[in-house]
């Protein structure tokens, strides 16, 4: 499985309140959530984002609330992968459980810039910055998590057991 797209770049501690503020949590419809995604940190994100695009951020991405609405909104926006130095743990679980690919890679998170075109190979964990010609090795998932991602989420994984 591969992803390719243009990068939207953010800093440290992007919390789930800015990814999808609570005032929009009276909906659980992915499309509706996507229409407000990142609104409190990047108002123009919803206009700029294109299917396949990639979010790159620094440490502790997705900190705060357990709202699965956050990775759901990101996924429904068309984002194909989130690369970060580290993820907050509930966001990390939620992303795996709903089948939103995420990769931890400190170097890539630091060096990739907004607008770069980046390619990710999920099987090898290799992140390739086509714009700059640089390559990074992201952390591959443990086998158990790979199985969940391959099943496109925890629910399918359990159903298949």
């Amino acid at each position, binding site marked *: 499985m591969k992803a390719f797209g243009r990068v939207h770049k953010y800093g440290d501690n992007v919390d789930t309140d800015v990814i999808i503020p609570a005032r929009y949590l009276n909906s659980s419809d992915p499309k509706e959530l996507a229409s407000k995604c990142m609104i409190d940190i990047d108002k123009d994100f919803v206009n700029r984002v294109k299917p396949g695009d990639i979010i790159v951020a620094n440490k502790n991405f997705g*900190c705060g609330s357990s709202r699965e609405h956050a990775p759901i909104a990101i996924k429904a926006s068309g984002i194909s992968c989130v690369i970060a130095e580290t993820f907050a743990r509930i966001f990390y679980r939620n992303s795996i459980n709903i089948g939103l690919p995420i990769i931890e890679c400190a170097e890539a998170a630091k060096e990739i810039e907004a607008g770069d075109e980046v390619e990710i190979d999920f099987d090898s964990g290799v992140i390739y910055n086509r714009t700059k010609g640089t390559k990074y090795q992201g952390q591959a998932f443990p086998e158990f998590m790979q199985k969940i991602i391959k099943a496109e989420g925890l629910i399918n994984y*359990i159903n298949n057991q």
Partner: protein
Amino acid sequence: MGMTMTQIILAAHAGLEKVTAGQLIEADLDLVLGNDVTAPVAIHEMEKMKIQKVFDKDKIALVPDHFTPNKDIKSAQHCKIMREFAMDQEITNYFEIGEMGIEHALLPEKGLVVAGDVVIGADSHTCTYGALGAFSTGVGSTDMAAGMATGKAWFKVPSAIKFVLTGKPGKWVSGKDIILHIIGMIGVDGALYKSMEFVGEGITHLSMDDRFTIANMAIEAGAKNGIFPVDDLAIQYMKEHSKKEYKIYEADEDASYDETYVIDLSKLKPTVAFPHLPENTRTIDQVGDIKIDQVVIGSCTNGRLDDLRIAAKVLEGRKVAKGLRVIIFPATQAIYLKAMEEGLLATFIKAGAVVSTPTCGPCLGGHMGILAAGERAVATTNRNFVGRMGHVESEVYLASPAVAAASAVTGKISGPEELGL
């Protein structure tokens, strides 16, 4: 090498003699929790599953607390989905608003969590129950759906940071000040993926409500859970509130910790977290002159009886500053009633505060106290992220009930000592 308290509880629930940090395990769950924001998503996910019945109708707790009493039509629809699911699945622990409360104050009060339990909740502050010596952690809605169906969840066994608490905290230093101090020290990702294990004789000076506050905010340091040893006070609490059998687990003497911090509680001062991260802490003598528009006292962090008693002690015989909005939320119906019987609510109302029914409302910018652009609030809640309590240009300062109540009187961020207390 030995195991931490968290690791021992997880091993016991995974049917394993021994677990080590980083190991992936599947553990049996004693309780699965959801609220009106997260449960409807979980219920939708569960509809896709082959298993259609919950694993144990007594081991699910559903609490409509976030946008209740229903704030708008969409929220009412979500509450209805949860209510109908609870009826259909004959869930024992569904709490309609007349018997409800903010979930993390309600569950221990109802005796649904005891020492030794493994609990997941589709709410990040599920880590609160570590105060009772349980392993409890926040998850998302899909984990909740899987947990409701199978009674199991997958975990990566965490390593731990040990916090040795010594000394006796000063008069106006509470659990909130202790946890804000710790978050200020280690940062909002200082305990990422890890357990925070609190030990030391300083704990004997902390009430159960202080401990709930400390464990509650473990997530604000990125932790998987926060946990306390089970002492006489915790046992007494469980005996008063629960018929469930508790089990006391203790960390091995040779358990390994990533780091150990020794914190002398007698040296701590009331502490405030400035916008927009809980780690931006300053002691009360360093806050400067910050005028405020609103004070919120309540939430799963600080809406318990001790918190209200402290706020009432500060507000007794005093008046809220002119032009300031002060909103007080007892965390559960039982706390509300007790606060009424003790005369605390009368104190609040006479001082010029409003008292609301239990709800998470303002803490997450849902309803019942939203901030306009440029406004500032002192809140006893848990997060001060951008836009957390309303407009993206509003600000939240996190503090203890004592500081929030004193600030209510002066109209700026103040400690109780400024009032001569």
